């Protein structure tokens, strides 16, 4: 039955303000609204609680240790390094295209073409991670192997390049939104001063949209850090920091790829599982920090 039959459904009027009724619909919706909150809480709670034994037995070496031998010691540094390195490479490769594309689409394309490009980007973002992994394994890694004369194409560079392709649509779409939200009068003022159109874009529109663009980049970083399956297939899977540290042609391991590889082995039991949950906690904190920074910028972007 519907609560509208209840004469009290409109609720009392307090201080002249209208308060909606608290019928069953209210409570059902309120319960559902709490699911997201609850899920976020459970997620964080489990990651903290389950990683405590590993953090306690390993201490600081958990974060700083370079060796991960199941049953002996658990050092997360190579995985943290791999995540950061692959993400940095992805950004370096994707940013020129994502930002150039965003500027072109926002400033030079007519509305119809813009919609088409945005739809293409949305489809690109929708390609399943496992299919990206398959593409990386069959095309990207062999290309890298041949181009640089490596023994094995599965490397930090392959993971970075694949991640670059995967985050390009996210960064481009959100940056484009930021550029579109710069009011047209700003551009018209600059045009009336006699600037060419590209001068207007780079001296007015881009600086104005910069917080929004930064937010878009941060969200892209978050995406890249958390991607599991595509990275797992091309990163090489060796828990080691290469020497020298900037040798991107050597295989590595990112946190998600480590989790994806080993979680099934110790599902729910033992120090190994606790250590994996610890890695998960580190990953969550890294992505949360990035997302927080991104949202800070995005909020500044729309006043």
């Amino acid at each position: 039955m519907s609560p509208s039959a209840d004469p009290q459904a409109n609720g009392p009027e307090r201080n002249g303000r209208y308060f909606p009724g608290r019928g069953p619909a209210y409570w059902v919706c309120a319960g559902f609204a709490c699911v997201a909150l609850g899920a976020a809480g459970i997620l964080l709670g489990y990651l903290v609680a389950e990683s405590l034994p590993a953090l306690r037995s390993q201490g600081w070496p958990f974060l700083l240790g370079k060796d991960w031998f199941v049953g002996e010691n658990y050092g997360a540094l190579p995985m943290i390094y791999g995540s950061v390195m692959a993400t940095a490479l992805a950004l370096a490769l994707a940013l020129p295209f994502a930002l150039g594309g965003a500027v072109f689409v926002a400033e030079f394309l007519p509305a119809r073409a813009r919609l088409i490009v945005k739809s293409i980007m949305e489809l690109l973002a929708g390609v399943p991670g496992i299919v990206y992994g398959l593409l990386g394994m069959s095309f990207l890694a062999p290309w890298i192997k041949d181009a640089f004369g490596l023994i094995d194409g599965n490397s930090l560079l392959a993971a970075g390049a694949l991640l670059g392709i995967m985050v390009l649509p996210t960064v481009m779409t959100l940056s484009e939104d930021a550029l579109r939200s710069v009011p047209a009068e700003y551009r018209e003022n600059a045009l009336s001063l006699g600037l060419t159109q590209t001068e207007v874009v780079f001296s007015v529109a881009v600086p104005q949209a910069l917080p929004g663009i930064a937010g878009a980049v941060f969200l892209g970083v978050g995406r890249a850090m958390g991607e599991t399956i595509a990275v797992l297939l091309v990163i090489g899977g060796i828990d080691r920091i290469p020497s020298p540290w900037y040798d991107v042609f050597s295989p590595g391991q990112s946190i998600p790829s480590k989790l994806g590889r080993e979680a099934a082995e110790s599902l729910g039991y033992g120090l190994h599982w606790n250590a994996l949950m610890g890695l998960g906690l580190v990953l969550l904190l890294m992505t949360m920090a990035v997302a927080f920074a991104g949202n800070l910028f995005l909020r500044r972007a729309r006043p």
Partner: protein
Amino acid sequence: MRRRLVDSATRGLLFLTTLAGCSLLALILTAVVGRGFPSMSIEFLTREARDFGLDGGIFHQIAGTLILTASAGIVSFPIALGSALFQTEFLKSAGLKQALRIATYTLNGVPTILFGLTGYMFFGALLGMGVSWVTGALILAVMILPTVQISVLEAIESIPAHYRESGMALGLTPWAQIRSIVLPQSFYGIVTGVLLGLARAAGETAAIMFTATAFSGAGIPRSLARPVSTLQTHILVLAQEAVNPKAVANAWGAGLALTALVFALMLSALWARSRLRLESHR
């Protein structure tokens, strides 16, 4: 003159970056279709896998992906809709609204593998569901919740204020307002959100690979407590046998089927969204 030249050169460069971005889709589609098509056939789609996926088809995997995705959608949709309605129709406190919004966006940024890890601990271990269809469906439901919720929320918030005011002027109760104004006016937005969520669930591997799926021997699950086999994990296992050309060929066949499924969902979502835009311009 020089400035004019710089202007056109910059434009040309920007155009090229856009072209490069868009041609990625063409490249990816060519590669997936080119590699996947040779293994594709009616038999491949309708027969069950044999010999650990080296022989036979992917019928059970397609069915598994479909039922897992659909059940995640069925669980997620009412929660997302109820939560969005609560935020737009019932909740007046700006602080609480902000808290719910932050929770949604936080959940949206969580790496999917972490849903797998903690979801297994909660549903699989604590609630005793183990590695099963129901565990996977619930994990995917939580994972796509923010996608669906944000889409629905935006659709409801973009309903013009005078529609709502007309309802209030008629003295509609909140529930009548939802039923006769909010839901009809945001219908296509809700459809968009659900389809985007389903596409996300169908393409997800990391969250279900050790929580819901078994590689071989799992046919169509007889009950919610049984594991399923899915296209995603099938591809993953075959891809790791990279030395065997037959395995890789079948992985591409399954990859083509998965991509086709996800793109069908994405394209329907884009279509629904264009309908939403048309309606709001009327």
